């Protein structure tokens, strides 16, 4: 969760928004497993090289969930870019996830 942000200078490079994501799961419950797999897929397909993911298992560490107000899981919090967005669910609905991320429907990168 404290992963370093790549040192991208504020350069006028187009279409290289960096994503900082925080995934909340509950152990190995089916939806949590699915969420991990789906997020991995999405990152591979759409966000290669420009996304960092922190992960919290609420069963191990409820404190982070408490602080961030995550009461339903799985949940993906898009920390950056602003504004912060929360996505509930196992991320099966790729369209909706991409829409929330502000990523166009087509593959890029």
């Amino acid at each position, binding site marked *: 969760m404290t992963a370093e942000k790549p040192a991208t200078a504020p350069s006028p490079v187009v279409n290289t928004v960096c994503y900082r994501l925080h995934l909340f799961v509950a152990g190995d419950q089916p939806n949590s497993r699915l969420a991990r797999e789906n997020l991995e897929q999405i990152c591979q397909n759409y966000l290669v090289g420009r996304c960092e993911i922190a992960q919290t298992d609420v069963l191990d560490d409820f404190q982070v969930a408490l602080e961030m*107000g995550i009461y339903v899981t799985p949940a993906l919090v898009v920390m950056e870019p602003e504004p912060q967005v929360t*996505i509930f669910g196992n991320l099966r609905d790729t369209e909706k996830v991409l829409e929330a991320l502000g990523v166009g429907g087509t593959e890029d990168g």
Partner: protein
Amino acid sequence: MRGGTRTVHDNQRADGSPQHDRKTHLTAIDKIHTRIPGLDEVLHGGIPRGRATLISGGPGTGKTMLGLEVLYRAALNGEPGILVSFEESAEALRRNALSLGWDLTELEDAGKLRVLDGRIDPSAVRAGDFDIAGFLAILGGQSAAMGAQCVVIDAIDGLLRVFASLRQERDQLELLHRWLIEHELASILTIKSPNSDSNSYDFLDYMVDCVIKLDQRVTGQISTRRLRVVKYRGSNFERNEYPFAMTPTGIRLVPISGIELVHEASEDVFSVGNSAIDRLLGGGFFRASSILISGASGTGKTSIASGVARAACERGEKVLYVQFEESSPTMVARMLSPGIDLRPAIEAGLLLIDAVIPEAMGVEEHLIRVLGIVEDYAPDMVVVDAITAASRMSTSEAAYDFLVRLINACRRQGITVLLTHQAQEITDRTSVGAMGLSSLLDTVIILSYEEEAETLHRSILVLKSRGMSHSLKRHRFEITDAGIRVTDREGDMQDRGEGGRS
């Protein structure tokens, strides 16, 4: 009156220790005292320990405050608890609580209470299935960390809203309920209901062990909150509907229990402050009894009641005089005319005149206010002048309620109750029914005007003086500047009262 005095079990943890022994009592359920005045009496001890209680009601009925107050009082008593708010922000709750003088932050710092802001981000996107595992993890982690025994979830519909179908909501509720029981956590779930008889999640009523419904009704432009326990698995409870009020210090119920209770009659007789009237009564008034003085306007009710009050104060007793008809200065000044100077008693702190306008508030607020003063001031006698004004608070039915509950509460505490009642007609001697209270009254005195030779004379009749051999005759009396003087028309009774100086 005080909460938590009656309980059907005795394996209560007195010191908040985390363990309790369930096995020693197989028949009675273990309960957590709510410590809300009156509510533990209705619940026969409190809410079920380790089980779920549902509070349902419309907006503004006091669900949140009820849940919060149970937690707050438990926390003060050293039993930690958690409130998860899905409606208001934690900050707003803390602020509301502070207006009642409850410092939640202090208890939170002491690790006895935790208010969690569980509000779900309304802009959150749904992409696939999810569940309340995060909530359970937070609840489990937090309750283990502080040794919490009780959680309040306010309002559960605020959490359920995030799910797309009623089926999912139901599944999640069942999951939550099972989890709470497995973790031996007592819970209070609040839920909004459009009316007092239903909520959107009716199955919750079947699921939980205890169901409390709140509602708020307006009659005669005065609103009254009511509470009813509709279900309590494994325990008996009071089944009536009980009015309650949000007082400056919290919720307060006055259960109408024990109307049929036979109050222990006191043997102790005291003087009414006038030897002639004492004689008519057969001795005086019994302590902790209830007395009614009925009569038309101007017949001398307040004079006699003030005389009784002053005599009590002269014995060093404390009197609360609830005055519905006039202001305290007016009454004090007016009583100087029949020679009853109340000022020394007031200055000595033995007489408290509480002048209040009946229309100022509803019956519940009136009752709760008066009982609050009774509790703080601890009088030996309460005078209500005149009970007829109670009808102006709301309906006559509500007035009856008010009086019955006031009389019962006073008698339970050994306080004498003296009521005056304003009869409609100046020669009216029959309105003794006095709003249907007669069975509760030990002594009834009727004042009236008698017309004789085109002159009106005041007359006094002791209609009832339970346990005493009293005069059965009507006697004539005068109000002089030296007090009340009883004269007998047949001349067989020549007693002279001395205006309360006996």
